[in-house]
């Protein structure tokens, strides 16, 4: 696997990573020999069918799962040390906002836990809500917002404490196509402005190609990486870039990679 992390030390580096779950039906190889480096400021998408280990790999980076073998560093330290250092914000598939807290209260949650000062908290909540275009919704409760707005609030929550890394596990998977397009566009703008390193799990090819500087194609049984594509698309991406030849070519290569992964079975 070639290193595209640039001259700086990689933000995420996995080498020979394996993860085997012991189940009643015998061991399941969730990840086998995963090698990957992610450089600072990259937008990396993980794409593949269910069971390919893309979410499991993201959870390993977040130290929510522990690899069976191999090495994994995040910000130059072990994944668990990075978690304890609050190196990343994590966005789950469901918004998972606390129904008993207002939107502002939900965004404030990580700040309360991490012990930010009261004034700092208010300023940060306001700033990230503005970043996800939810200014003025701080006093609303989650049930008063649409699904897309709830997911934006959960992104604000992940951004509130300003971690350098944003890990997103199919954050827009449950939303309809129109809302999804809009949020994709907004996410790109947000990435441009904040210069965060983003790892993004999806099973939508257009979403992966549109968003990423690097696309990691994975395949199941055992979960492994079959292709890593460095996107030639520019950083600035209007929505209609999806009609360009370059976009179609990358999408084609991703589709080929997914198909190849299936044929090997």
């Amino acid at each position, binding site marked *: 696997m070639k290193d595209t992390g640039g001259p700086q030390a990689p933000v995420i580096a996995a080498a020979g990573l394996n993860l085997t779950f012991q189940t009643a039906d015998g061991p399941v190889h969730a990840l086998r020999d995963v090698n990957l480096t992610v450089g600072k400021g990259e937008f990396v998408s993980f794409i593949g069918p269910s069971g390919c280990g893309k979410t499991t790999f993201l959870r390993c980076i977040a*130290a929510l799962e522990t690899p069976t073998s191999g090495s994994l560093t995040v910000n130059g330290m072990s994944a668990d040390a990075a978690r304890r250092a609050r190196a990343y914000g994590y966005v789950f598939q469901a918004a998972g906002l606390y*129904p008993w807290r207002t939107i502002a209260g939900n965004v404030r949650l990580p700040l309360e836990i991490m012990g930010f000062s009261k004034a700092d908290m208010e300023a940060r909540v306001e700033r990230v809500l503005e970043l996800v275009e939810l200014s003025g919704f701080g006093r609303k409760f989650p049930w008063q917002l649409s699904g897309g707005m709830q997911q934006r609030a959960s992104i604000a929550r992940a951004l509130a404490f300003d971690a350098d890394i944003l890990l997103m596990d199919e954050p827009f998977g449950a939303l309809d196509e129109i809302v999804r397009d809009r949020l994709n566009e907004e996410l790109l703008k947000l990435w441009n402005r904040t210069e965060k390193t983003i790892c993004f799990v999806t099973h939508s090819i257009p979403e992966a190609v549109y968003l990423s500087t690097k696309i990691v194609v994975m395949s199941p049984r055992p979960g492994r990486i079959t292709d890593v594509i460095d996107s030639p698309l520019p950083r600035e991406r209007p929505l209609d870039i999806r009609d360009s030849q370059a976009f179609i070519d990358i999408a084609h290569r991703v589709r080929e990679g997914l198909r190849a992964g299936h044929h090997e079975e």
Partner: protein
Amino acid sequence: MLRALPVTVVLGIIAVIWYAGAVWLNAQWVYDQADRAGTVVTFAEVVPQTMAQDRPLLPPPHQVAAELWDGVAGQAVTSKRSLVYHAFKTLQATLLGFGLGIALGVGLAVAIVYSRTMEKSVMPWAIISQTVPIVALAPMIIVMASQAGIEGKMIPKGIIACYLSFFPVLVGMVKGLRSPDAMQLDLLATYNASGLQNFLKLRLPSSMPYFFASLKVAIAAALVGAIVGELPSGATEGLGARMLVGSQFGRPLDMWAALFAAAILAGLLIVLVGWLERVLRRRMGVVA
């Protein structure tokens, strides 16, 4: 108006059955009196006489209502004849037991949720404790309390009320504290939240709906416990004592009035808990 209709209909049916029962059960006394006097009474003469006896087998509703009204409004509240006085004594023990029950139930639930050992060792005993008939246990608790030198009946009554009320709180809170799903727990793990933060920010607020559901059961159980605690003690105070005295001295009206006073007290307590729940739910952003 339409909402009141079903309740009114049910109340009406109960009243009809009750009056019929009163006539049927109390008629025997009227016939016996007539027999002794050597007279013959017709059914039309019997019915009015079943409605106003001093010691009816089953007092009709209006007699109970009159006795209840006299007990509540007709006496000084400090008088031993006042149902307000007795209800207050029972209420004190109920609230004491309820408070102890909440503390014990929540405390044990937290211990059980956080410790497997506690779950394995405490939960079966908690369940067994509820299978022991409280009527058998209550006299022992009272005797032991007086042996231990505890003054008055308040504490043992509170303990009995607590014994009955902690269990629903325990069961509800164990379920409630375990209600957050894996994703919500993972989210806090990504913030590296401490165990205490995990409890205060997630588990405790998540458990509130379960908590209030169990409180409604617990408050009623605490009242039953307090009343049972007043039965064996030779107690002279409280609705339970009032019922016991009524039954022992053949004063059914006293007994029935005390019974209804207890039912009204239970209703008020449940309304109070329901109101507290609504206040909290509104603060937690749920439209009540």
